[in-house]
């Protein structure tokens, strides 16, 4: 059975957003990525078939972006921002710690199937560096050692990210006019 066989309504709505259905390729890739943790060659083939383009064209678009994965990922795909402000905030050390703790590199999945890791470029949360994004969830911000340990522990227990109690600053900090307006 194809991935989109039971998603005809969603497909119809998505195609209707654009004058040319080829534009639906990114939402389709995202849908597969979200549900399956990667976009398999079979899914690429299926998307190509539905859009009337070749699987190679699908792979060409897919490989352009960081979010779509050509290899299976863990249940929790940890994306660590590596760009300047996060690097100033210690993202290199954070990455090393993750590699040590999980004993995996980019492309691997932990034996329990829970975790995979990827360095990504600027996530647009430079003021709350360093930042980690799990799957397609809102960011985990101001990630200290203690907060990372708590995050991994919570995920291992199967908790939802928003339910995991992280020590210290909760993240999501905006200052304006010299005061904290959001935390």
């Amino acid at each position, binding site marked *: 059975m194809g991935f989109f066989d039971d998603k005809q309504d969603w497909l119809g709505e998505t195609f209707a*957003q*654009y*004058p*040319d259905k*080829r*534009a*639906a*390729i*990114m*939402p389709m*890739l*995202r849908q597969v990525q979200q549900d399956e943790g990667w976009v398999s060659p079979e899914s690429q083939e299926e998307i190509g078939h539905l*859009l009337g383009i070749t699987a190679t064209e699908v792979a*060409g*678009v897919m490989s*352009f*972006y*960081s*979010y*779509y994965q050509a290899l299976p990922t863990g249940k929790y795909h940890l994306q660590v921002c*590596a*760009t*300047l*402000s996060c*690097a*100033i*905030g*210690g*993202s*290199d*050390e*954070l990455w090393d*710690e993750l590699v040590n703790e999980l004993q995996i590199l980019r492309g691997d999945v932990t034996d329990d199937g829970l975790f995979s890791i990827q360095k*990504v*470029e*600027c*996530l*647009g*949360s*430079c*003021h*709350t*560096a*360093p930042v980690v*994004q799990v799957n*397609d*969830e*809102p*960011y985990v911000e101001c990630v*200290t*050692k203690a907060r990372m340990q708590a995050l991994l522990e919570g995920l291992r227990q199967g908790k939802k990210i928003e339910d995991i109690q992280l020590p210290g600053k909760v993240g999501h*900090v*905006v*200052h*304006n*006019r*010299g005061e*904290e*307006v*959001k935390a």
Partner: protein
Amino acid sequence: MSDKVPGAAGRGSDAPGPIISGKDSRFVPTLYAQVGKDKSWTLDFYLSHGGYESIKKAIGMGQDAVIDEMKKSGLRGRGGAGFPTGLKWSFMPKNSGKQHYIACNADESEPGSFKDRYLMEDDPHQLIEGMMIAGFAIQATKGYLYIRGEYKRAYDRVMAAIKEAKERGYLGQNLFGTGFEFELYVHRGAGAYICGEETALMNSLEGLRANPRQKPPFPAQAGLWGKPTTINNVESLCSAVHIIQRGADWFASMGTEKSKGHKLFQVSGPFKRPGVYELPLGATFRELLYEYAGGPTEPIQAIIPGGSSCPPLPWTDETLDTPMDYESLVAKGSLLGTGGVIGIPASMSMVDAMWNVTRFYGHESCGKCTPCREGVSGWMVSLFEKMGTGQGKKGDVEVLENMLNQIEGRSFCALADAACWPVRGSLKHFRDQFVAAENGKAVERVGSRWG
């Protein structure tokens, strides 16, 4: 290193002349006025403080008057390039008989920039209204919001806002009984910096690889699916709401002669209160970094003034007293960019910082043209890897400068230029650190930055 007592001398409240300080009592923050307030993203909240009145006013004014007002305000595009917004709108054909599109560039990915995120998370209706005003002015009945894929909370809030607006008659056909119609669609990116380049964004939206397109034709002639299209940054569109509401004169009363209005500045790096600050253009770095961001928490050697593509400036009184406007930054050899200020601590080598930035641009190069693909992703990254790891050799700095000369101004789009500018600025102000790397000094990480 500056140890001057912080303060915005001579820029106190009620000084005569244009408003160039956030401390001026005449300054009224608008863009971020609702950020952080409970339920600020809902339609009811938005309506409670005059929401969707600006679009009604715009419809009453008529298309030409709206574009004239935008021109008169002096608003320059807030996405980084600073192109006058009203002028851009005026490039659109009139009554072409074709579908026109307004696209909002919400692919905020310039390192150091995070202002558009909270505009979308906490005030999505402000952006929707801004897109409607632009749509009305350029005869676009359809809008696309291209939002970077990682902004999940912003996406959720925008989608909820669109749903609410549709259900209650703020989006759709015959709006406010005026015959004006506007549909809005959201397209999520998937992690590619180049999609912030307007023609690459259009290719990405159309489902192609996000390589930039040849200009001309410009988007106003042939944009999305070959139809007349205008692409504006989130902050520019939100500014339009207040310009129409309060008038061009209000907007132009802030800022300097050629840089009008106010802007969202962002602070990251080792400062006491990193975040987003809404200030008039022409406010100084000192005001932003000391009075608002609370000053540095450790010695700083340089700031990148407006996102990673802007040449760094040394941390001196001269830099701190520089007004944050388009012309003043150019005069100092840098750029205002997105207004994303990054402080680089003295404990981090500038070679290390530029290695990071170069790796970023190398990763984000789309690969379309040779100077960028081979020059930035290949040569520059390799040379930084060599210099950064203590394998530098005499002559490397000259080689690096030669690379910059060969790449800058020779690439298909501005991405390769954006990769060259910060390195060139660093060589200008911090050459000794590059010479040390050339002599085999590996970049050091002084202590752990993480705990």
